[in-house]
């Protein structure tokens, strides 16, 4: 019995893993099939013949410039991440380390919006973006999301966990607040900043609802918004659609493999606030 148990455990774990991973493998396999092979009933597992048809279609496509969408997404997610890191870390520093009038009220307001579903602000945010002439520009998928309270809340908690003595020493050396922030606090906060960076990048890269409604021009779309168009244009031409889905998946899967620790820690910590 005691020898059987680990075997049973691994059998169960492998079965569950298959459920989670098989669909992703199927996406990969289909993306390298020919149109005919993907239409086969019943479908075959392995791509026979192996084909780059799906990728050829999306990479040489003027009506659906998938490569352009990929670059748009990469640019938007990168700039969004930088914006979040800079603004949230500065605000979190003030909220964690400084006393000023209105601090409690402000922090209460910021945390309060964590409980508000972001979808409920879509209509007013659309009109605000329209007044800024941001609709159908990359700015509209970079900037508004950085108003999220998560980064500020997350970094403030982390800063509070760092002993203030280190900063006191810097004060005695005559450092000003900016120097303390840049030279003492930020270097100590690298793990938290990395976690926030990875989570911000993932969120922005994967965002779907907002880009679908605020971007229109084919050359301005982000990849997720474009994938919706691809589905409409290719209906059951699954190698092409799966090649597009692969293009959206590979960067985040690579990021996940290399930054797994940060993703998992970020998620588990978000639970501890409850």
């Amino acid at each position: 019995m005691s020898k059987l148990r680990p075997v049973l455990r691994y059998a169960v774990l492998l079965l569950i893993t298959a459920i989670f991973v098989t669909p992703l493998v199927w996406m990969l396999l289909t993306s390298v099939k020919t149109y005919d092979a993907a239409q086969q009933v019943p479908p075959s597992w392995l791509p026979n013949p192996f084909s780059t048809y799906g990728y050829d279609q999306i990479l040489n496509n003027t009506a659906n410039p998938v490569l352009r969408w990929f670059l748009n997404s990469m640019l938007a997610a990168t700039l969004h991440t930088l914006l979040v890191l800079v603004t949230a870390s500065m605000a979190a520093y003030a909220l964690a380390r400084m006393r000023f009038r209105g601090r409690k009220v402000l922090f209460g307001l910021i945390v309060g919006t964590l409980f508000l579903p972001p979808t409920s602000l879509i209509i007013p945010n659309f009109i605000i973006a329209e007044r800024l002439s941001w609709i159908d520009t990359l700015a509209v998928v970079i900037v508004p999301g950085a108003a999220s309270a998560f980064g500020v809340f997350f970094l403030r908690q982390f800063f509070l966990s760092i002993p203030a003595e280190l900063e006191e020493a810097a004060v005695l050396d005559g450092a000003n607040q900016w120097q303390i922030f840049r030279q003492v606090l930020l270097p100590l906060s690298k793990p938290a900043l990395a976690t926030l960076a990875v989570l911000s990048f993932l969120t922005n890269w994967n965002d779907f609802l907002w880009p679908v409604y605020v971007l229109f021009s084919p050359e301005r779309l982000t990849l997720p918004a474009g994938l919706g168009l691809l589905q409409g244009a290719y209906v059951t031409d699954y190698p092409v659609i799966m090649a597009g889905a692969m293009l959206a998946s590979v960067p985040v899967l690579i990021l996940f493999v290399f930054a797994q620790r940060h993703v998992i820690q970020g998620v588990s910590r978000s639970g501890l606030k409850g």
Partner: protein
Amino acid sequence: MADVIEVGAARDGAPPPAGPTRGRGATQRGNRATPYLFLAPYLVLFGVFGLAPILFGVWISLHQWDLQLPNRPFLGLDNYQDLFSSDSAIYGDWWSSVRATGIFTLFSVPLLVVIPLGLALLLNRSFPGRTFFRAAFFAPYVLGVAVIGLLWRFLLDANLGLVNRLLGAVGLPADTPWVTDVPWAWVSLVGVTVWWTCGFNAVIYLAGLQDIPAELYEAAKVDGAGGWDRFRNVTIPGLRPVMLFVFTTTILASANVFGQAFLITQGAPGEQTRTVVWRIVDEGLRDYDAGRAAAMSVFFALMLAVVSVVNFRLFRYRED
């Protein structure tokens, strides 16, 4: 790492460990404007896209606000009234979307509270390969709804999809209309969402499980408690705050369902799987009736706020 954060969280509400006294802080640690300068960049973003839209949304909802017309006459609560009077043009569509979101939430939330707990318990001890399995369970969540939507639309395709093929291979019916008919469309939407997000909740549970002191289990063992007793009397009470968090955030996430229905069932059959969020954005941004859409948003946000408050009350109450 999680422990470190907990220390920070425990300090919440206590004065910040900044300069020891106000006077010294003001003279030695920068002048009075300094905090506001640090806050300014974020506050601009927060003000324009976080706070203003809350008030602006309520304001819009009180007007007949057509995005394409210059005049926005004040309507008072008419937009809200339209949601409740059966002779308004929007009544049927609105309540059909509330029903769709309700069905989805009702079936997805229990599964997303229970299944991840099971996964977390499976992973909650050290054994070779644990990190690998945790990553595998979490992997779908890393992908966006656009990817998993297209993927599952394909997998659930009645003729070409892998799901019907696998069912056929084990002798089950191989022609289920997973994305075009009820109740199958609901099974698909709920199933895909569970597959997609249960790794996320499992990771949160796992962190919660690791915070339960091992001594509690030891003590229970000494008292002769079996595995089930320990689960009931140590694990569940220890997880209560984490469960509250998982339950509340899962309700919020499920109530906001959009992409799965938009891409997988595409609202079918008819408009039965068209959800609230989808209805709101279509009303406001496709049909340009921002006033009505804003009223729907405000009403929807209030409903969710009530649900969250009720959750907290229920869990707190049981704690006493």
